């Protein structure tokens, strides 16, 4: 039976979709059967980051409304045979998503996969609520920046009260994933440090994704960063995070770029 994991943040632009794609791909690369669901109705992007944008026929709302079968809407990744995508609708109204409909889809997917990753839209409206509704675990993507930390705190409060697990008196297992981290700026006191964020949010850390141009390069070509450049700092950070999700204990480090001789000589920022 699959674990349902929501990737959420409250704030937009912190790296939810990038992280969903990278975590999903890394899990699939380890042999896990993974489906990623885009809950961002009207602003879908997970298809684009995964390079499946031209293969979308049916979407989440089509399935909720019974227009398409789940099997017809699922898109299999061309590179990773264990990775599947259920895209969001680009045209429909987000009110077409219903609690009951999502519950039915999750129940249908559970026996077929090991992981169901729900990519939440920004905000705290219906799409975000439904993305976390059936979650067993949550990855809260946070940037080292005041507005992001505040919104993460709000989302943690919602995970503890508005989910099916919370209503049953159980607890959604929560993890903080710090993205866009710049170790240099943090050490100069220009950016909130890891310790600061963890102390404020009082939630365990899943991983630290360094700020890196590799993330942009990967999304440019529609490939999860763990697949596009497995040796890059963010890819290694996502792989570490996934191993921790699988229950392994891995020392927490911020992977750094492996600088070439020339860039070291020229002192260029190899971010």
């Amino acid at each position, binding site marked *: 039976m699959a674990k349902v994991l929501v990737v959420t943040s409250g704030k937009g632009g912190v790296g939810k979709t990038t992280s969903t794609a990278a975590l999903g791909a890394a899990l699939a690369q380890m042999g896990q059967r993974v489906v990623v669901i885009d809950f961002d109705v009207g602003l879908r992007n997970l298809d684009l980051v995964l390079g499946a944008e031209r293969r979308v026929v049916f979407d989440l709302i089509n399935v909720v409304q019974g227009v398409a079968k789940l099997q017809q809407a699922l898109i299999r990744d061309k590179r990773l045979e264990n990775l599947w995508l259920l895209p969001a609708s680009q045209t429909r109204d987000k009110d077409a998503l219903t609690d009951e409909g999502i519950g039915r889809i999750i129940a249908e997917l559970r026996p077929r996969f090991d992981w169901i990753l729900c990519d939440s839209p920004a905000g705290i409206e219906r799409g975000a609520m439904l993305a976390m509704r059936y979650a067993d675990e949550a990855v809260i993507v946070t940037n080292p920046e005041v507005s992001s930390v*505040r919104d993460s705190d709000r989302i943690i409060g919602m995970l503890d009260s508005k989910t099916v697990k919370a209503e049953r008196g159980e607890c959604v297992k929560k993890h903080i994933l710090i993205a866009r981290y710049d170790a240099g700026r943090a050490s100069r*006191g*220009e950016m909130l440090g890891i310790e600061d964020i963890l102390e*404020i949010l009082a939630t365990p850390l899943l991983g630290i994704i360094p700020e890196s141009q590799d993330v942009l390069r990967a999304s440019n070509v529609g490939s999860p960063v763990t697949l596009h450049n497995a040796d890059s700092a963010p890819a290694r950070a996502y792989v570490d995070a996934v191993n921790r999700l699988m229950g392994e204990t891995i020392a927490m480090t911020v992977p750094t770029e492996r600088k070439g001789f020339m860039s070291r000589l020229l002192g260029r920022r190899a971010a």
Partner: protein
Amino acid sequence: MNLLRLINGRKATAPVARERLQILLAHERGLRGQSDLLELLRAEILAAVQRHVDIDQDKIVIRMERGPQVSTLEVDIEVPNGAHKSFAAAG
């Protein structure tokens, strides 16, 4: 690093961010699932005054300051002379 900071005169801003967040979130967490005490006081104080005096809404200044230990609520109401409501008329 500290030397660099001395040279360009910039102060570390992260500690400020941390402190601001701690104060704000302590307050916001307290709000979840219950009404805000300061908001409640503000509403009830205004209602109490309005029962006796006609107040121009523009003449009310309310300031709130949330701190880690103590928060303050400052309600400044301008009461014109002769604004006392007649209880006889009100019945």
